[in-house]
């Protein structure tokens, strides 16, 4: 069976797009082939910085023949009908049609249209130009003189040539002839840009791969990755070091070379005084190089791994030296920041009372850097966070003075050079600089940790000082953006407010911290009013609080769902007034979930729903609510009296248990209700003719609703 080889050769394709593009090419071509009756045995796509290649194995040489019968008019139909039939079936005369008969319709003409399958190369020549012209690159461009005209070919970077051959293994394959915007498919490609720039003639996939390899191109990205990984580890090992593995970087680097040559570069040891995170960020982000460490100490070494794209004439000496120089220049930049940030600022040289990080805070304030145009400056934001952190500190067991200090320094590193250069190091740098100026360790740690958790997988701060500042920062952010009505919508959450709320939830739940959320949200609003640049909320305060609490409820549901916990009961608890202690809400939800899973729970829920349904219907019909206390004098049946007594006991005992935060106990109390509810529905008819009796029984049903609300709003329970 014949194979297809397709190569699209262009200028350098961005590394991050290569893998996806190869997958897209495979899917687009094979789907188009299958749609046209051309099934195949296997297909694989490849990418290098300069080419996308597709190999499809085991294609038929031609499409299957199609045989189609077209029913025509009855024999003896008017001439016009016969002519119309001949035309539609593509017949020259009626003699070419056969006659079939049918008991109902009698004799009629049938045209057998045989469409012989087309040769696969012809099909390919038809489908490939369209696939190339509409290829789904994330970003594409026009180029050259052709770009003056509308509708010019777009590609990720200029497309230069196309290889397309088709044929069986035993023969020399044919070139599939087609053309896209002046580029004619052929059987020539090119090798490595510098090491083998001449044309390479190819036949089929096997010799294509080996010819490319001779021309210093390794087609398969996974092989390039493996070569880089192995070589890097070997080079590290030979120097008594260990590679700091980095899969994201490896994938990227493999997309930057056609012929990986792994080399070792070095930098001055003195740069190792810079924090390791900074060294790594510098070398990774700017140079796309790997760092090495000493396996014994875990400390970074003053060597790095670089991946070149060429076997240089001098064995790579110039390349390693050049990369080393660039790394040194970048590290000396970083070192300059690292040193500068620890020195006094020129504008505060006479303020001996201010330590370096405090000076950065002063600069942040003095420059009136805006946090958000409606939410004041960073300085004002810091003042709010400080005030809030002081209030939160006692509740989370933090020392107030430390929490205040940590909060006041939390954002100071935004005014440092290092964070200006590497924004991803915010917090971490503040921690380093704080420790260097002798801050309490808990204060220094809080500067880094108050940003945490950054995502679902990130660490949650546990030290009380960190917790106080982290909560203050997040609550201030949430309240601020809520007050100016900048809430997340759909997939848009530019201020990461969902992450902030989830952060609060995780800090409270994972740290088993109790917090009256409403009070602190309200406090946060009050803090906001105290600072100058912060405008009064545009939304009324109760509305902000209510809405924000509902947002927390939503986030809490998402969190519990991700934890695999029962999350549909959140509303049942949130629906009760004054529920804003997330830890207690979750505990109660858990207890409620366990209770509803028992037989007692299930039955009680059924009974509750029955009561609620009857009430809803009757209250609607009568236009009144039956929310009064049932009159014991009107109880006619024993079951009514028993239910009333049970309800009274449940209200008393359940509310006592809830008050004592004994949620399991409250559920046990609820369970005692089940027999009397069941018995009531078994024996007692609610809708009787006697009006007073009926009203009293409806009030009794309402009492079930009231009693269960001591624990949860059962109307919100799903399923």
């Amino acid at each position, binding site marked *: 069976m014949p194979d297809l080889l397709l190569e699209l050769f262009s200028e350098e394709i961005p*590394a991050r797009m290569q893998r996806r593009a190869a997958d897209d090419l495979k899917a687009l071509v094979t789907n188009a082939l299958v749609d046209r009756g051309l099934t195949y045995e296997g297909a694989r796509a490849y990418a290098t910085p300069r080419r996308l290649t597709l190999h499809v194995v085991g294609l038929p040489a031609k499409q299957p023949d199609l045989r189609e019968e077209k029913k025509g008019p009855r024999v003896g139909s008017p001439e016009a009908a016969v002519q119309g039939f001949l035309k539609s079936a593509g017949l020259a005369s009626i003699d070419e049609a056969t006659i079939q008969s049918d008991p109902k319709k009698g004799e009629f003409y049938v045209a057998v249209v045989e469409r012989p399958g087309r040769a696969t190369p012809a099909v390919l020549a038809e489908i490939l130009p369209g696939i190339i012209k509409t290829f789904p690159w994330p970003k594409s461009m026009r180029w050259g*003189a052709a770009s003056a005209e509308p509708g010019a070919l777009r590609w990720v*970077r*200029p497309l230069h040539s196309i290889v397309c051959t088709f044929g069986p293994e035993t023969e020399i394959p044919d070139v599939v002839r087609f053309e896209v915007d002046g580029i004619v498919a052929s059987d020539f490609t090119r090798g490595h840009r510098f090491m083998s720039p001449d044309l390479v003639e190819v036949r089929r996939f096997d010799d294509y791969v080996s010819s490319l390899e001779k021309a210093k191109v390794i087609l398969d990205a996974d092989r390039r990755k493996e070569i880089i990984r192995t070589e890097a580890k070997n080079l590290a090992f030979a120097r008594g070091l260990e590679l700091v593995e980095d899969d994201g970087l490896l994938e990227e680097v493999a997309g930057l070379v056609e012929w990986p040559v792994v080399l070792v570069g070095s930098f001055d040891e003195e740069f190792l005084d810079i924090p390791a995170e900074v060294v790594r960020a510098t070398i990774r982000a700017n140079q796309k190089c790997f760092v090495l460490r000493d396996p014994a100490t875990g400390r970074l070494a003053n060597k790095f791994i670089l991946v070149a794209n060429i076997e240089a004439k001098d064995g790579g000496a110039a*390349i390693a030296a*050049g990369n080393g120089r660039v*790394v040194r220049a970048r590290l*000396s*930049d970083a070192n300059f920041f690292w040193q500068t940030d620890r020195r006094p600022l020129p504008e505060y040289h006479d303020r001996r009372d201010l330590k370096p990080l405090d000076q950065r805070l002063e600069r942040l304030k003095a420059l009136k850097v*805006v946090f958000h145009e409606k939410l004041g400056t960073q300085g004002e934001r810091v003042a709010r966070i400080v005030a809030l952190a002081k209030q939160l500190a006692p509740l989370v067991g933090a020392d107030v003075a430390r929490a205040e200090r940590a909060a006041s320094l939390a954002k100071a590193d935004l005014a440092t050079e290092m964070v200006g250069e590497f924004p991803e190091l915010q917090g971490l740098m503040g921690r380093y600089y704080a420790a260097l100026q002798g801050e309490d360790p808990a204060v220094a740690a809080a500067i880094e940790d108050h940003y945490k958790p950054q995502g679902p997988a990130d660490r949650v701060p546990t030290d009380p000082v960190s917790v106080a500042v982290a909560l203050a920062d997040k609550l201030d952010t949430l309240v601020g953006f809520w007050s100016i009505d900048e809430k997340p919508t759909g997939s848009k959450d530019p201020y990461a407010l969902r992450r902030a709320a989830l952060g609060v939830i995780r800090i409270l739940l994972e740290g088993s911290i109790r917090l009256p959320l409403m009070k602190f949200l309200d406090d946060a609003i009050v803090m906001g009013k105290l600072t100058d640049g912060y405008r009064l909320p545009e939304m009324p305060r109760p509305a902000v609080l209510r809405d924000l609490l509902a947002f927390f409820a939503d986030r809490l549901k998402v969190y519990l769902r991700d934890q695999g916990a029962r999350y549909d009961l959140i509303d049942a608890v949130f629906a009760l007034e004054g529920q804003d202690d997330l830890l207690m809400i979750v505990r109660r939800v858990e207890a409620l979930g366990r209770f509803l899973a028992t037989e007692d729970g299930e039955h009680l829920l059924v009974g509750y729903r029955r009561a609620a349904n009857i009430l809803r219907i009757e209250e609607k019909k009568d236009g009144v609510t039956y929310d009064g206390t049932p009159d014991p004098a009107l109880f006619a049946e024993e079951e009514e009296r028993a239910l009333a007594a049970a309800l009274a006991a449940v209200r008393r005992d359940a509310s006592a248990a809830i008050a004592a935060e004994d949620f399991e106990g409250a559920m046990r109390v609820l369970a005692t209700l089940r027999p009397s509810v069941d018995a009531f529905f078994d024996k007692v008819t609610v809708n009787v003719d006697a009006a007073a009796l009926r009203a009293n029984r409806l009030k009794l049903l309402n009492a079930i609703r009231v009693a269960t609300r001591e624990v949860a709003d059962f109307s919100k329970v799903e399923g």
Partner: protein
Amino acid sequence: MQAPEYLNPRRSFQGLILTLQRFWAERGCVILQPYDMEVGAGTFHPATTLRALGPKPWRAAYVQPSRRPKDGRYGENPNRLQHYYQFQVILKPNPPDIQELYLQSLYAIGIDPAVHDIRFVEDDWESPTLGAWGLGWECWCDGMEVSQFTYFQQVAGFECAPVAGELTYGLERLAMYVQGVENVYELNFNGREGDEKVTYGDVFLQAEEEYSRHNFEFADTEMLFRHFRDAEAECKRLLAAGEPDGGGNYHLHQMALPAYDQCIKASHVFNLLDARGVISVTERQSYILRVRELAKACGAAWLKTEGGGAAAA
């Protein structure tokens, strides 16, 4: 013709510039001189920004002193300057072998691709202030970014038809590399030795110190805010005054270039204000937007001129 040793691009900063100029002159470029205004990059030169618009072919190369007030380091950083040189090449439409031409130009200045690792690393270019974007690469030589390579797709909010290829060489970095110097101030400027040698530091160190002071500490922000408003207003006024009046004497825009000067001015004033740290993150956006509106209006005006391809009635 063998150039004298003092013009060898591997020894002389000016030799490097002259070599590039000669290289591109031989490939049909007009060799322009720097634009006589403060700009943040060679792209701002009307020979790039405006000439990239419209159907007319254009090939030019020039050195452009570029000012990035925020990058000042008081002369203390060996790699960062608030004033530096870019060598800019614009080829419209881009020739099919533009990558090859670029590599040949590197060879001309002494970078042998058989010894060095030259790479085209994705870097999509966007100038929010110019309303321009393009796709291309940073060109790396042994891990150092030595050039920017961009296929302009849009400038001043208009599609480029045809597309121009833009090459921007960072001259100091390139010179540091070929001269094997780690500190920009040690670059040999004139290629001479001994008493005759002039270094980059001799020429520019004092300027870096003084301008860093100016950019970060002393530039009068009240005045700059005023200059920004003035340039903005003047740009708009010139654009309105130069509009073709259709039926009258003028069928073409009369003042696209002077208006564009004011746009450049506003952009530089904004950069100074930014360096002074008096523009907040959110305000930044609105300033950038204001400059972009000017750039777009200037581009639109340019397309109504002869240079922009409009035909006089």
